[in-house]
């Protein structure tokens, strides 16, 4: 590496040799070892600007920004099996709810039917009672006669 190239790279990439083109880093280090005084002077000059640039720090992301991004981040994916189980569970819950509803309707209907039947029996009994009474009155009247 020529001194001119070394100077150009120092003025381009700064004092940190790790920021220099990878292919030229080893040669630059060798040159520093063989010509330490002027190479160090060039690097010191570049380091002044590097240090000034490093003063420009950016504030950390706000908590509000991080929270907004977390709210928008991908959610955990469920496996095919758990999704199927979940769907079947949903279907099962639906069927169970439908079954319970059907059972309630059935019980209600049976109750209504039984209530109707008991009314019929009562009415029939009432009519039956009336006829028995009528028959008794008729029988008593016949005896009196």
């Amino acid at each position, binding site marked *: 590496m020529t001194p001119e190239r070394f100077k150009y790279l120092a003025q*381009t990439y700064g004092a940190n040799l790790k920021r220099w083109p990878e292919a030229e880093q080893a040669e630059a280090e060798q040159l520093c070892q063989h010509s330490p005084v002027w190479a160090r002077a060039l690097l010191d000059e570049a380091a*002044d*600007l590097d240090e000034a640039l490093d003063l*420009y720090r*950016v504030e*950390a992301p*706000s908590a509000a920004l991080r929270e907004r991004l977390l709210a928008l*981040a*991908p959610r955990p994916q469920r496996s095919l099996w758990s999704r199927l189980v979940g769907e079947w569970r949903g279907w099962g819950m639906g069927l169970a709810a439908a079954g319970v509803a059907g059972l309630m309707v059935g019980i209600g209907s049976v109750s209504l039917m039984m209530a109707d039947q008991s009314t019929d029996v009562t009415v029939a009994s009432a009519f039956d009672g009336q006829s028995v009474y009528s028959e008794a009155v008729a029988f008593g009247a016949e005896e009196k006669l």
Partner: protein
Amino acid sequence: MTNRLPDPDADLVIRVGRGDPAAVQALMARKLPRMLSLARRMLGDASEAEDVAQEVMVRAWRQAPTWQPGAARFDSWMHRVALNLCYDRLRRQRERPMAEPPDQIDPGPAPDAGLMGMAMKDQVEAAIAKLPERQREAIVLCHYQELGNIEAAALMEISVEALESLLSRGRRALRSLLTPLNDRRLEGLA
């Protein structure tokens, strides 16, 4: 060339794509400050930088489930998205008509004199904002984002030689803007 390098974010991105909460936190911790810094130094405005960083991360969330490792490094892809968003905003800033065009010469201090009165950090910020956009981009990518010259040149879609030219001119301009300040700082320290 950079496409052949292993992607240090590949595993993390795949886990983010599956919705792994720990991976989401880790990727955000790794990339959000990086994208915010890039946008802040490119745009010089904290609020706009936050908008850009948020948009980049949202796009990363969307991209993660379909990300194909090997096509490009995820970090490079994020830088590309961030730079595009920054340039969109810079273009809009240029196209925005001035509300009240100045009809007389600004009687305020000259730009360099303005820098003199600022804290050193603000002076550096102001000096970077004064650079032409491409020089600023080159310095932001190579110095602050610590990208290699090949990756930075690829992102800027220029040759490494052209990148070096931008870097060299940018640093020279910064030196001329900041040297009087550095001298003053050194005098103050003596």
